[in-house]
């Protein structure tokens, strides 16, 4: 679970604001839940910033897993994006309107037909 860093800056109107909150917000959904994320973040970073730290269940035991390395090495952040499974959340930039889902076990064949 992540939160914006506490880097307080003064905006032009003199009001303190978080640097990271200045970027435009994008709408997306996670398991059908409407959420927003910062434009420029990856899917994995967006999920962490939204308090979601488990994004898949393993094919072997069904154990919950979440982003571990954030650099494309560990494949723990695999999610279903717009119907396509096995996407590395840490490598995919968030886009407006994305439908992101928990990946349950292996990539499902029907997902590939999207």
């Amino acid at each position, binding site marked *: *679970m*992540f*939160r*914006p*860093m*506490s*880097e307080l*800056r003064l905006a032009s109107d003199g009001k303190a604001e*978080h*640097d*990271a909150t*200045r*970027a435009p917000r994008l709408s997306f959904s996670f398991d059908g839940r409407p959420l927003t994320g*910062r434009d*420029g*973040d*990856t899917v994995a*970073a967006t999920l*962490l*910033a939204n*308090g979601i*730290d*488990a994004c898949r269940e*393993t094919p*072997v*035991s069904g*154990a*919950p*897993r*979440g*982003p*571990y*390395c*954030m*650099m*494309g*090495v*560990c*494949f*723990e952040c*695999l999610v279903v994006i717009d119907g*396509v499974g*096995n996407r590395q959340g*840490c*490598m995919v*930039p968030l886009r407006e309107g994305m439908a992101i889902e928990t990946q349950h076990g292996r990539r499902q064949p029907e997902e*590939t037909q999207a």
Partner: protein
Amino acid sequence: MKAVAEIGEIADHYDLVIVGAGPAGLSAASRAGEHGLSVLLVDENPAPGGQIYRSITTTPVSDRTVLGEDYWRGSAIVARFERSAASYAARCTVWSIAPEDSDLPGAAFEIGLSLDGHARLIMAGQVILATGAQERPFPIPGWTLPGVMTAGAAQIALKSSAIVPKGRIVIAGCGPLLYLLAGQLAAAGAEIVAVLDTTPRRNWSAALGALPGFLRSPYLAKGLRLMAKARRNLRFIGGVTNLTAEGTGRVSSVRVERGNATQSIACDTLLLHHGVIPSVNLSNAAGCLHDFDETQHGWVPQLDDWFASSVPGIAIAGDGAGIGGAESAALRGEIAALDAARRLGRITIPERDAQAAPIRAQLERSLRGRRFLDLLYKPAMQFLAPPVDETIICRCEEVTAGQVRDAAKRLGVTGPNQMKAFLRCGMGPCQGRLCGPTVVELIAQARGTTPAEVGYYRLRPPVKPVTLAELASLPPSEAAVKAVVR
């Protein structure tokens, strides 16, 4: 620099294809461009910088004191690359590098690329792998629980998204990056409840021999400053001998052993770090030979003075050539690019040597003191070969340390490739990146031999998953058509 947005914009042939847009790849591309080579720089990430200069052009962290001046050095490296004539394919994955057997002039390699779900095969005369490093696996019981991450992961989140773990953070392990990250997270306002240092006390005697080099190194002042700051401002617990991440569904505490004493520390996030090792998946799959480096305790490609690998035409620069840090990575990239220009006949050997001489001098300076750090921060054996049988070591296939030990002892499995056949370790999506070093270490320990003797996984392309649909949509080559016509 010419940014490539779609895979169709990539040319069929380049003099030089460089993989990885960290300091080594960026510097190699800039230097090669200055010598008139046609260059394609391919990188998986959305923006240049690699991991060390991650998001240097896009980071939302504007207070320069948070990430430190060493991070901001990356701006100049990227700016030079942007002025070059090189093509740059971001979000593009190299999944294969194979020798090209056609007689096309200047086509030595066939490179498999994937961008936005579309694959392409292109030709390259020379290849420089600048795929850098990854964090050494840190297998402890419970390290697969959500909320347990690598220290590097938290650093990436900070650099690229200006976010920090929420709630109580425990940082565990050893090495310069650990203390750097603790300082960066603290500066970003994160709540670090403890730094658990696993540096084995006996490492000091091994490292002392390398102390003179360290005393003359650029690391010294920087390192001491980092350590002093971390120790002054944070709860620092040294002499940690074992760790267990505990929790149901996610991490809620970490059990800390210091010799015979045990304590439990409640936390919301546990960050692990035991140094970095070269990323060998692509070089291994391309057929480059690797040796086990005792000092760095990891697999390092066999390279000559120009960073040329055992496969003629493939050079390996940056931390992928052995861990040396950001500054040396950039210098290695320059040297590898000069030799690529020489092999392509753009410069003569005397020209290459003259240009490389001052870079080599800088490189030597930048590597001074590295040996001391390698020896001091070599992880203790219990973190390389986990003693608790239930510890998961292959995260993808959920294979435990006990299973690997049992197969090595009872079934007499002698190497990691045979181990795959019995246990499937290393056969999941990460292709051994997170279990390879541990599997090798466990086999070596069980059989009373060394990692060098045990060997490593034989990796094969594709080094990153590509769909069958992508492969099926590749245009067939003339040879492929001929092969099935009759």
